């Protein structure tokens, strides 16, 4: 079953067209990495899929339910209740974690399941503690975000997203705001999620990680998908010149 299907997505900021005719389909348990230089549109694509940005053209479906349909070339969003329901299908982990600073770790994780999904408090807390243990943070449940390192905060953010029981998770450069020595702990968490068959779309700069964990790699530049395929095809044997140039630059940097 395809969890997410987008067709012919267009997005502009003013005169600048950021996404040009993007189509993509994601199957259950698939792990997809999106690579590309800054300004290539990869983060905008992710934010459109997470419905933080509205699209200017094209259509989107989640779990075979229409979120946006294209009516004579113009995108029409589904009803508010439908969108609200669809929002529950996915979670997003931000580059800057965006934990709620006034909530403790456990409250960050449990508040939305209790007050948005109206689940029982006991059950939610129990699950949250299991998640924290999995993240190696079981001793931190009463800490406030400012008392944690960046890596710990990002793990709480992942736990917060998982507590909503999404069908798929989006990651927007999850390690970019971290010190290099802290990226490892996040990548480890992502790897274990992949092992558990979580459907994930990851915008990242970590080439080695993308190679080892992804089922499929997408290389974007200038608002289009330049190259798409298995890690072996896109990362190890890129066909397109722009992909080659980008990968070369990345390997120099690291």
């Amino acid at each position: 079953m395809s969890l997410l299907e987008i067709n012919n997505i267009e997005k502009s900021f003013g005169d600048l067209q950021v996404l040009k005719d993007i189509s993509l389909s994601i199957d259950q348990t698939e792990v997809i990495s999106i690579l590309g230089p800054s300004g290539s549109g990869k983060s905008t694509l992710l934010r459109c899929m997470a419905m933080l940005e509205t699209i200017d053209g094209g259509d989107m479906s989640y779990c075979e339910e229409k979120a946006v349909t294209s009516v004579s070339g113009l995108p029409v969003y589904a009803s508010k209740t439908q969108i609200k329901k669809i929002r529950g299908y996915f979670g997003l982990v931000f580059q800057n974690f965006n934990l709620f600073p006034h909530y403790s770790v456990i409250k960050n994780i449990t508040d939305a399941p209790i007050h948005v999904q109206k689940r029982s408090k006991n059950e939610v807390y129990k699950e949250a503690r299991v998640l924290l243990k999995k993240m190696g943070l079981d001793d931190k449940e009463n800490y406030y975000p400012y008392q944690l390192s960046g890596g710990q905060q990002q793990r709480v953010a992942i736990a917060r997203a998982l507590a909503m029981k999404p069908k798929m998770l989006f990651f927007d450069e999850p390690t970019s705001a971290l010190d290099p020595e802290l990226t490892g702990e996040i990548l480890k968490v992502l790897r274990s999620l992949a092992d558990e068959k979580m459907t994930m779309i990851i915008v990242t700069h970590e080439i080695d990680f993308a190679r080892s964990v992804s089922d499929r790699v997408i290389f974007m530049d200038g608002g289009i998908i330049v190259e798409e395929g298995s890690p072996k095809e896109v990362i190890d044997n890129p066909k397109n010149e722009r992909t080659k140039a980008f990968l070369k630059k990345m390997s120099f940097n690291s």
Partner: protein
Amino acid sequence: MKLKKISLSRITVILFIVYVLISGFTFYCAADNSKTFTVGFDAEFPPYGYKDESGEYVGFDLDLAEEVCNRKGWILKKQPIDWNSKDMELKTGAIDCIWNGFTMNGREDKYTWTTPYVDNSQVVIVKKDSGIDDLSGLAGKTVAVQSDSSALAALTDDDATEENKNLAASFKELQQVGDYNSAFLNLESGAIDAICMDIGVANYEIKLRGNLFVMLDKHISSEEYGIGFLLGNTELRDEVQETLWEMLGDGTFIRIAEKWGLESSVCLSSEDSYIDNTVTENSQSLVERFLSISKQLMGGLTASLAIFFLTLLFSMPLGLLITSGRMSKLTPLRWIIKIYISILRGTPLMLQLLVVFFGPYFIFGINTPASYRFYAVIIGFTLNYAAYFAEIYRSGIQAVPKEQYEAADILGYNRRQRFFKIIFPQMVKNIIPSVTNEVITLVKDTSLAFAISYTEMFTLAKQVAAAETTIMPLFIAGIFYYIFNFVVAFVMEYIEKKLNYFR
């Protein structure tokens, strides 16, 4: 330790200000080498002294003073004063005399007087159609007098006649007002039923206001006007007195009286002699006076506290409502709120209080009950402070990163939850320093309620200061305000610390 540091730096600041004031004063005195004669007067007391249509200070008393100065070769300085502060002005030498339809009766021992030059009486003014036609008709009514005026003294002083004391006791309320203009506005709007005042001023005001008002036939007292000098300053008094007699002799005095229609009231005579008085010391000890004045101010403190707490109680939530309008997606609503905030921040609070108090009558013709005075204070303060709080809230909301909204949206919170659960607590933390400023300003702003004659602590302090001819009540009021604000600052610091659990 931190507390000590703050109060030390405050003391340094206070010392610096005192230094600047003293050095400025010394300079002022040194520069003054030609003889000036500074006359203190209430600029709202026609026809004796007031501001005419061209903005000049004119009047019978000022004309007399001008003539005296011409003859003596002095430079006349017309100094309008706040009537409640007249004794302080005189004591500090800021004015040389009080020359302004100044009643001698009951004040014989407080000043060095010239001989009386006007005979005046205290009369009662009511609205023409009020149905009140004699003094007994004032029973159960609200009657206004100017604070520390002869009318007030005639009704309530220890040496007032029994008849007048009984009359005053029959009133529903004896309201003290700052000036006659607001007294007449009050009378016209029905907030008060009668005004007791000097006959000369009464005649003038009735004529000026198109005979909307009438004077009761029976006077409540008769009295005389003199020129008051600082007790003991006989030298200057004698110079002025001799010049007045000179003016009386050559007919100038009567000519000036005729110019102001006062020829039937003047009574200057070279046969009169001075009142004999000397400086007497107040027998109460400093501590006793401090305590007695503090006790008198307590009633005013309660009123100030009421204004303070009720204003906060209403304006803080109202401010939030206004902010939501200010940040609304509806353009017309946003503009209305913008204009509201602009007006409330752009005009004096004092003016807003006047509009709220007198507006119902003068705009809509609604007669307001006597209790409306207090409500008007609270409404005026609330509307004004809500505008300020609204802008503070807005800055606090805008300081919350937009990613917090996105995180809340991704987790499925609705708009209400997003605001009250996620944005609001962060806003509160952002705005604490600005709110502290605003709350401390409010403590001091409560004194502005005097604009509509609501007796809070500062108004009371001025009245007590006038009655006891000392600045001690003002000083004590200052201490009370400071303590009040010290507590406010302490509480706000506590709240700020409590909110330090997150960053």
